[in-house]
């Protein structure tokens, strides 16, 4: 009797659940849900410097310039611009650009925002070259740079150079309900869970209006869970799809994988101040010794491209370097350098992927009779330790904006020793080329400058450039408007069913 009544309850319940089926799958075509591997850190466009917060900022705010699919700066709210002198930029914004509170964007907001950006600890490096900003008229500002600065428009396309309404930004709301001018307005940020944005029907740029009514950024920290959420239809797009999940997603006819090489570069850095890397021949030998294809396979299942020089192929100024995988050549160079095979080198790394890469490097070196111990660090400690100068050789990466100056100056100028120049590389010719590249406005001449610079640094062999990974995005096959730039999925406002 009792067993019977239990069944009476259980059977309909299970049946209801089974019939209800996957009610969670892609139920609302007007809402696009994007999976993020980590939560955003701030809604203030000048209060963060991470890529996920940037994605949200790009939908809430406008900048003077933005990047197109080819990662070139094109006008955002800027209408016209000219350079009266090499250090001066007159930029006029479009009239009638409305913030989400209905007020109009003026040059006073632009001046306020750029000056605010220069004061923000997190993004002050973006506009470090700006000397002053002044208001010319209601829609025009004059920006003066410290020196003539060729990549200036690129810096204005950074999220840290977003235009915020002065009235709101100086209020006491503390960015709880941010007001911008972008194609989406803010609805909610549930910390650790999701960010919800709503379409802005009054967006000034009618050709780039938001397509979906609602965009939800859902935080799913576990890579496998992100893929499963894509498979169940709970999310429509996944950034940074796990390389090991690509085949599975590709095999699913309801899903689609998009890939494009990023602007990242991963490298093996050699400290020129420390033996044995104070010897050029040893550094060159290491450039012949590492099997980069194997590195790419263990790191990303092969989804990327092997790096042949310091500037990734996706960045202006790229030129192939002279080294290929050739252990025999490496051995000959080591012999010429009188390399001491009795010593044990210390290879530093941080994180799971770099641990795997370090093991490949270790095995490659072992083949040549070189002993190397791997020492792993926690990320914060790693950044500090590799700044200290005690490193022998180490694994690290750099994610760049499309102008080469933004990566080459920090990574190879002597002024960055103790910070980003972790190989402690110094070459006066490189210093001069870096300075020339920053002021040269002629793109063809700039191209030559960076090609020459790349040749010199590669000949000095301070890095073994390893690979540039792909941006891998998984999406519902029916989702329209998915387009990747070297920045990854860049036009979230265009996504729709």
């Amino acid at each position, binding site marked *: 009797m009792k067993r019977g009544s239990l069944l009476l309850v259980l059977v309909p319940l299970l049946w209801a659940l089974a019939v209800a089926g996957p009610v969670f799958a892609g139920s609302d075509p007007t809402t696009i849900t994007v999976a993020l591997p*980590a939560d955003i850190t701030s809604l203030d466009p000048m209060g963060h410097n991470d890529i996920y917060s940037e994605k949200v900022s790009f939908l809430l705010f406008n900048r003077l310039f933005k990047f197109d699919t080819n990662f070139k700066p094109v006008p955002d709210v800027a209408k016209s611009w000219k350079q009266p002198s090499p250090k001066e930029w007159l930029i006029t914004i479009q009239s009638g650009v409305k913030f989400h509170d209905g007020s109009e964007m003026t040059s006073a907001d632009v001046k306020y925002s750029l000056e605010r950006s220069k004061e923000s600890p997190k993004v002050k*490096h973006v506009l470090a070259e700006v000397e002053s900003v002044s208001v010319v008229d209601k829609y025009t500002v004059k920006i003066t740079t410290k020196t003539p600065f060729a990549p200036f428009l690129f810096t204005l396309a950074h999220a840290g150079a977003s235009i915020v309404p002065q009235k709101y930004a100086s209020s006491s709301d503390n960015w709880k309900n941010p007001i911008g001018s972008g194609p989406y307005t803010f609805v909610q940020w549930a910390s650790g869970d999701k960010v919800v944005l709503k379409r802005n029907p009054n967006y000034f740029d009618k050709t780039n209006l938001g397509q979906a009514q609602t965009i939800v950024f859902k935080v799913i*920290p576990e890579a496998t869970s992100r893929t499963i959420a894509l498979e*169940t239809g*709970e999310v429509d797009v996944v950034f940074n799809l796990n390389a090991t999940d690509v085949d599975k997603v590709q095999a699913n006819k309801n899903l689609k994988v998009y890939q494009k090489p990023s602007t990242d570069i991963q490298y093996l850095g050699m400290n020129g101040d420390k033996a044995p890397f104070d010897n050029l021949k040893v550094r060159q030998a290491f450039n012949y010794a590492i099997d980069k294809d194997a590195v790419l396979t263990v790191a990303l299942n092969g989804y990327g491209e092997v790096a042949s020089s310091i500037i990734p192929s996706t960045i202006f100024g790229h030129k192939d370097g002279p080294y290929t995988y050739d252990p025999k050549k490496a051995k000959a160079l080591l012999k010429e350098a009188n390399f001491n095979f009795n010593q044990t080198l210390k290879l530093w790394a941080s994180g799971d992927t770099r641990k795997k890469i370090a093991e490949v490097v270790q095995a490659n070196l072992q083949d040549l009779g070189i002993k190397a111990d791997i020492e792993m660090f926690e990320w914060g*400690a790693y950044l500090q330790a590799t700044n200290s100068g005690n490193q022998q050789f180490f694994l690290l990466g*750099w994610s760049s904006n499309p102008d080469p100056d933004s990566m080459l100056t920090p990574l190879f100028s002597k002024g960055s020793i103790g910070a980003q120049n972790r190989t402690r590389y110094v070459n006066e010719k490189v210093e001069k080329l870096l300075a020339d590249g920053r002021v040269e406005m002629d793109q063809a001449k700039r191209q030559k400058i960076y090609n020459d610079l790349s040749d010199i640094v590669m000949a000095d062999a301070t890095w073994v450039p390893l690979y540039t990974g792909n941006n891998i995005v998984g999406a519902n096959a029916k989702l329209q408007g998915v387009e990747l730039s070297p920045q990854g999925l860049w036009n979230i406002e265009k996504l729709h069913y």
Partner: protein
Amino acid sequence: MLRQYIFKRTVMLLPVLLGVTFLVFTIISLTPGDVATMILGQGATAESVAKLRHQLGLDEPLLIQYGRYLAHLFQGDMGISYATQKPVVDEIVGRFPNTLTLAFYSILVSLILSIPIGVISAVKQYSLFDNLGMVFALVGISMPSFWLGLILIILFALNLGWFPSGGADQWQSIVLPAITLGVASTASIARTTRSSMLEVIRQDYIRTAKAKGVGNLQVILKHALKNALIPTLTVIGLEFGELLGGAILTETVFSWPGIGRLMVESIQRKDTPMVLGCIIVFSVAFSVVNLIVDILYALIDPRIKANYQRKGKAA
């Protein structure tokens, strides 16, 4: 009396909090890595790192930093998160209800499974049910939660589509994480219930009750279980207290926005104010749960209540 006891316990919480915060403060400060470098990222200049260190007061001696933290804490200010620049209190207030909900439903799942298993296993000692129940409990405690979580997701979210695979948007979201955590705490509660039941059902008064002709079910539920519940309640309290500290792996697998994930992310970012905030909430929650358990003893067992009252009179 009871009120005095509660007051005493609350006052005792203060030195605990002082000790815990000092310990955590020191440990985070001693771990390698610089907070300012981590906040500003790889692209930061040495100058801006130094400036930020100064702004955050990190260039001052540890004791002064800690003293300043305490001074603010006593005014109810837990500080601003290094990573998000948001008040720590806001962040915790946003996350703690999620942790509380998950802990509640997990313990509910656990109780639904463990008490019947424990009781029946004791009553039918060495039977097939007893052995199966104890094997289930053993498997439950041995299974890594992230593995069980993923299996449940694959089965019930991906293949059957009954529940969402993660998040905290709808009531169905709680089911899979609550089962994952509930199964893990089932083992200890079931085993404790079983052993204390075994002890109780051999007591004279149980035999007397049976001799008086009281029904079997009534003897077990009314006479035996009530007395056997004291040790079980302790274990439930401990399990619940632990769950309130957040279940990091389960929260990660199910993208559950709880306090455990917040704490781990904050530790990774060396976000000292946020870590301390989480630790304080965890310590207070754990102590409060234990206090509630102590009070429940008195409600369940009149002897303990009498003990409280005697102490109250003596004082």
